[in-house]
């Protein structure tokens, strides 16, 4: 980006359409900063194990380096009694360390999403303390840790669902739009039937038949999430296939898949890209609502929806609902700001 001078928005020759759009996206400060902030948080959450964990990142014991995050060490390694894995939160471990002059480096937050704090002074859910910065939930698990891991899971799930749904939508829309005629008619009727299936009821039924898992959720939601997009891609392809350069390519003997995905798709990507952030936010919201209803991820998985449900069940524990609310709203808002900036950047009327 930096090699190009940006002469007040004018399309000087070497600006590719993509680069021009990126520059226009950057001009929208709100969207651009939202993207930066979101990326930073997402990157941090990807390294959640190093930020919030009940195992030390590094143990120096008798001049040896140990990395408990990546390997399980039995207690005997550090001069303990049992051959089972070390419980690093146990005061006994600290005694061992002090006795031998070893050192253990813990992450900033000494809780994993499923670590239960047994040393609480008050009944759970317990309010914020120096140990649990955002308090604990009703099973004594650290809220901050659960939010961090829950945010990661939500975003990853959202991205996964978006990628699967977008790919399917593009494929269906491309086939419909490019071949048109009977193919289009058949697919369109199929989509109408498929779209009229009650999604939520199907989810509830499946949740009662199968053991709930993230993969199952991903598959079930993917079955329905592609339909809106395929319409847009279809429209773009219908428009594009009558372009002269597509006819030219056909007359030149270029194969159908090549025309579809090298000529038409790049020109039909505008709705796809514009919708991406909105789709991610919709997917996150879908996962959260399903979790809130108890139809989502299996128990003990960190999830924003489950935290919200706990907040509702323990209305006096304000730290549960408030913190989860802020994380959820923050995430969705950042995504929507990014989406708006993208939409503006791709708007053909704004040259």
């Amino acid at each position, binding site marked *: 980006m930096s090699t190009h001078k940006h002469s007040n928005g004018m399309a000087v020759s070497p600006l590719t*359409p993509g680069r021009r759009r990126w520059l226009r996206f950057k001009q929208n400060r709100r969207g651009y900063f939202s993207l930066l902030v979101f990326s930073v948080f997402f990157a941090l959450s990807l390294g959640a194990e190093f930020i919030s964990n009940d195992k030390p990142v590094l143990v120096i014991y008798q001049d040896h380096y140990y990395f408990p995050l990546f390997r399980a060490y039995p207690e005997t390694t550090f001069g303990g009694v049992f051959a089972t894995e070390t419980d690093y939160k146990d005061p006994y471990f600290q005694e061992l360390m002090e006795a031998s002059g070893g050192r253990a480096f813990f992450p900033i937050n000494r809780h994993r999403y499923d670590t239960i704090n047994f040393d609480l002074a008050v009944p759970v859910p317990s309010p914020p303390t120096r140990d649990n910065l955002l308090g604990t939930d009703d099973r004594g698990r650290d809220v901050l840790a659960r939010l961090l891991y829950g945010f990661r899971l939500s975003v990853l799930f959202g991205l996964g669902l978006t990628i699967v749904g977008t790919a399917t939508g593009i494929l269906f829309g491309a086939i419909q739009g490019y071949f048109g005629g009977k193919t289009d008619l058949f697919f369109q009727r199929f989509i109408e039937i498929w779209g009229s299936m009650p999604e939520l009821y199907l989810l509830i039924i499946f949740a009662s038949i199968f053991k709930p898992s993230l993969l199952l959720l991903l598959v079930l939601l993917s079955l329905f999430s592609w339909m809106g997009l395929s319409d847009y891609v279809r429209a773009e392809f219908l428009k594009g296939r009558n372009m002269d*350069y597509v*006819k030219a390519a*056909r007359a030149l*003997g270029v194969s159908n898949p090549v025309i579809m995905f090298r*000529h038409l798709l*790049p020109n039909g990507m505008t709705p796809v890209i514009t919708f991406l952030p909105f789709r991610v936010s919709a997917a996150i919201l879908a996962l959260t609502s399903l979790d809130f209803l108890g139809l989502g991820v299996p128990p003990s998985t960190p999830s924003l929806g489950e935290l919200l449900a706990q907040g509702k069940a323990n209305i006096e524990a304000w730290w549960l609902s408030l913190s989860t609310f802020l994380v959820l709203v923050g995430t969705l808002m950042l995504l929507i700001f990014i989406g708006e900036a993208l939409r503006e950047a791709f708007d053909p009327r704004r040259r």
Partner: protein
Amino acid sequence: MSSDNKPLVRARNLTRHFDVSPPFLNRVLEGKQRQFVKAVENIDFDIARGETFALVGESGCGKTTVARMLVGLERPTSGSMEFDGTDIALLKTRREMRQYRRRMQMIFQDPYASLNPRWRVMSIVAEPIRSFGTVKGNDAVRARVFKLLRQVGLGEDDAYNYPHEFSGGQRQRIAIARALATRPEFVVCDEPTSALDVSVQAQILNLMKRLQKELGLSYLLITHDLAVVHHIASRVGVMYLGHLCESADTRTIFSAPRHPYTKLLLETLPDLSMQGRQRVPMAGEVPSPMNPPSGCVFHPRCPYAMEICKKKLPERQNVGHELVACHAYQAEK
């Protein structure tokens, strides 16, 4: 043009109808009939190697449909089109069609629309090369593209620019370079100059002429511009409402036209010698090809129309290797 030489392209009774019927339900419920646009009706023509055959006619007369059928963008409803002895109308699979596609290419009317705006010239010109794999290896492809660009009068540096950085004439040169990329023998030019400025038209036509001489190309030129025909074509076919009225050498067409429609077309040409002479304006509108007039399709506008013209479609008549379809001409003889 030796007559004993087999023509490169030979079309016989070439016909294309478009189904424009209302949807099935409407036909059943509202009692509507099936409807067809008769875009091309029983057309015959030969194109010899190295010659330029021009198809002329008003817009909507079906000349572009002929071009699109030849390069495989449309399938003929009936009739045959032979390319180098093989009837390509009978080829069913893409694979069979492919080897002929390489040998005939097309230049489109609007160079602003026929080049993908997102691709650099390099990729545009290289596309047919890569598609047919005529040249292997990236360096070889690049060298071939450079050679093609030089051939059409562009520079090598132009390969790294986007289409929108070029003028209309330059874009048409790029389109020509792309069409020549697979070393075709036959090039269909669909109004190659009509989207260009008059000052540029001659340049493109001269380029086409030069390339024809250098590479031994045959052209099918689709145009409504008689000046272009005069400049470049060796033979001319005149189309009206899907029918071929007359085909003859360019010189014959311009000096001794046989069909009344050709005569009327030539009337529209402004030239110095007809100063002061009253022009005969062509009467009437072009009828709809969905519902063409009975008999000879030209009879409602024809100054020589007779009774038989309303009833019977005139048969094609060979005059030497030339051809005319007109009752009046027949009667005159």
